[in-house]
């Protein structure tokens, strides 16, 4: 029964296992990291500047007050103002390119809804929530940055804090899941 070297001391096997673990862990870690990081946008939209000039959020994200989706502005919205402005910054040059060819800008949404969940902006806006309560202070950001940990517990926390008397209704599964 005596063997030269037990199989579990095989270097190849150990390296193999280590590699698999590394890939798995690395994948998981990358997954976690990239969901918490602002994605690459076609144009690094300077929120700070726009918010700073006093443009209300709903000017571009107009759907928030009337429906479930806040929406991303169309090229029309951007081009409407920027047509009159100079285009000598690199970002505006890019915008000019989209605008002049009337191509939609492929924005990457930052605040995404997990699948199988429905979120409706309207009641939240109607209840007087400010945009920055959930979306952070965009005045300090260029591209919008995600807020980590926006999960179901986060929703429930807020519902519980804001309206404990309505919590039964606001924690009802059918409110978001259908």
């Amino acid at each position: 029964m005596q063997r030269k070297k037990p199989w579990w001391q095989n270097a190849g096997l150990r390296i193999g296992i280590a590699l698999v673990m590394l890939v798995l862990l690395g994948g998981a870690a990358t997954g976690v990291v990239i969901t918490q990081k602002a994605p690459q946008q076609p144009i690094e939209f300077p929120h700070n500047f726009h918010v700073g000039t006093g443009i209300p959020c709903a000017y571009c994200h107009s759907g928030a007050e009337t429906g479930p989706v806040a929406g991303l502005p169309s090229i029309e919205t951007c081009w409407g103002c920027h047509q009159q402005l100079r285009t000598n910054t690199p970002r505006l040059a890019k915008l000019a390119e989209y605008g002049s060819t009337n191509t939609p800008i492929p924005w990457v949404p930052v605040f995404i809804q997990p699948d199988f969940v429905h979120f409706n902006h309207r009641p939240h806006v109607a209840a007087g929530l400010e945009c920055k309560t959930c979306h952070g202070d965009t005045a300090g950001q260029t591209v919008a940055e995600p807020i980590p940990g926006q999960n179901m517990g986060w929703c429930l926390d807020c519902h519980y804090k804001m309206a404990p008397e309505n919590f039964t209704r606001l924690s009802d599964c059918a409110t978001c899941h259908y």
Partner: protein
Amino acid sequence: MSKKLSRRDFLKLSCAAAAAGMVLVGCGPASRYVTRVPYAEMPEYQHIGKSTYYATTCRECPAGCGLIVRTFEGRAIKVEGNPNHPVNRGKICPRGLTSVQGVYNLDRITGPVMQGRRGKAGGQAISWDEAVALVKKRFQETKGSEIAFLLGAMPDSLYDLTSELASALKAPAPVRYSALNYLEGRDVWLAVASQYFGTPSFPYFDLENAEIVFNFGAEFLENWLSPMAYSRGYRGFRKGQLGARGYMVSFAPRQSISAAAADEWIPIKPGSEALVALALTRLAAYARSEFSPEITRQVDIKAAAEASGISEEKLKELASRFAGSNRPLAIGGGSALAGKSAFETASAILALNATVYNFNQTGGVFLTPAKAPSERFADVQALFEKMRSGAVKTLFIHGVNPLFDLPAALNAAEAFKRVETIVSFSSFPDETALASDYILPDHTMLEGWGYQTVLAGTTRKIVSAIQPVVVPLYDTRSTADVLIAAGGLPYKDEVDFLQQKILPLMSAGGTFTAPELPSFWAKFLQYGGWWQKSADYAAIDADALLKSSISMPEPHPAPADQYHLVVYPTQFGDGSGANRPWLHETPNPATTVMWNSWVEIHPQTAKKLGIHDDDVVRIRSEFGEIEAVAYLYPALRPDTVALPFGLGHEALGRFAEGRGCNPARLFPNASSQNGNLAWADTLVSLSPTGKRRPIARQESRHGVYGDGE
């Protein structure tokens, strides 16, 4: 108009497609990188995240139901009924519901094609300029009399336009037909109405307010004249709005859904409907202590009882019940109006109504105000005869699939070979499109313009509006636009044509009006059409009918080894629905079968022939043979077999191709004296093939029939 056209450019948008794709990938980091492409220019009537609803008209069958289509970010999401539309009042059938799967079908023709070889898929793509030039060239180079137009039952606007074009080109008037016509006996009603009332209009049977209804084979819940209107009528009939719950007797060799909805089903021998109707007419007159009308002069009650398999007592009982009712009504359709003596049958049914004086009465028979264009099978026959003789050089086909839905005995394919150029406007690669030289795809139902005159199921004048609810998905072009451009008609484009056509309606007393065309047009589109405020029917007189004398139809009992054939349309309509997956997945109401055809055989007959459920059976008529899977159907005469219509395509894309069987192969190329296709007299023989092919059914065979599995 140009504004309207240009809106199509706005709606170039595909974000949700990507989003939907990502949904499938599941949650996690993947959905982080969904790119969402917003509109380049936001149309004023689109709002982010909100649905826009458009009114339009269903083009799935000639009924002309009003639709409200929910669109979302430039895509048609859901078809709903237009609650204001007088035809369907917000209700809608499976075929209409799946019309989004027609628009977003996986097998559409994406642009004009020059076929390399007839009958083979895949040709050379051409541009629309070339296509229009080509059509123009054909118009110029072909003699007027050698041009032929073959059109489907929808939409009327195109028929009107083509008629104008044909007369401008000095070509014969377009020929129009639909498989539903001859399957449901529509054309017979038109012939009867022309004969006795002087107008080619459909009778309107006021089912809603009737108290007792004798139904001779009409499948009013499934197709017939206007399924949604008559379904609503059935509701009223059942709810007994004017009194008691209605009582319905159904005379049909096979129980369709409509026959099953009756309180009493009388499995009448096929071909004896006219005799029974006449016998009932006479007996009803007796019951009312009146003279029997002239039309019943020749009928012999005893012979009728014998021919139909209904006892004399039963006939008398039924007749006295009918005559004694406040609001009796007799209707007919389906296989009863599809034989050689269909005209006589329809006349007899009308006579039965006339004898209880229910013309123009609540719960009785009216005449729909709109005049219907002729849709006789005899005209189609004549056209194909002409083609066969080589007298047609250029053939334009829109909205029909003659290679599929005409009797194989007509040998349409052979006739096609004698035609120099065939131009198909089909949106889908169906048999006919593939057999033509050029396919210049029209928009599908939710992408195109038009109007549909409502011909049946109403006592008002209704013109239902068809408008695009989404931008055409592919490089298709409205056939009307092509014809206008190529034919040099005095219209700017299709919309201009439509506007001019609806111009007279502005002052015709509809539910709305407007001072000038643009606002009238806007309302026309907004409401989904134009209709009168109240009923506006021409009163009809029963005299001519009752005094006429009709030849007594000969019953033709089937020999021992042969069976009467009943073919009925299903949710696939004239067969054009066969490329929609969800129509396939919708179980057949009677058999719950999905995704395939079957042949209904009475269990006794099957036992006699040694056929079991799911056996593949060969059905042979004098004119052809097909194979179908046996379904032992208990509600069918033992001397009859029934086949659903609509499947058995050789083309039309992945969902239709090679699925099921096509009963049109069994039909004779025979029209009756009045021009309808006389398929119901066909006798077939059955033989098991020894093969078995279990078909998909929703019901459990073991649970429902106690066998199998």
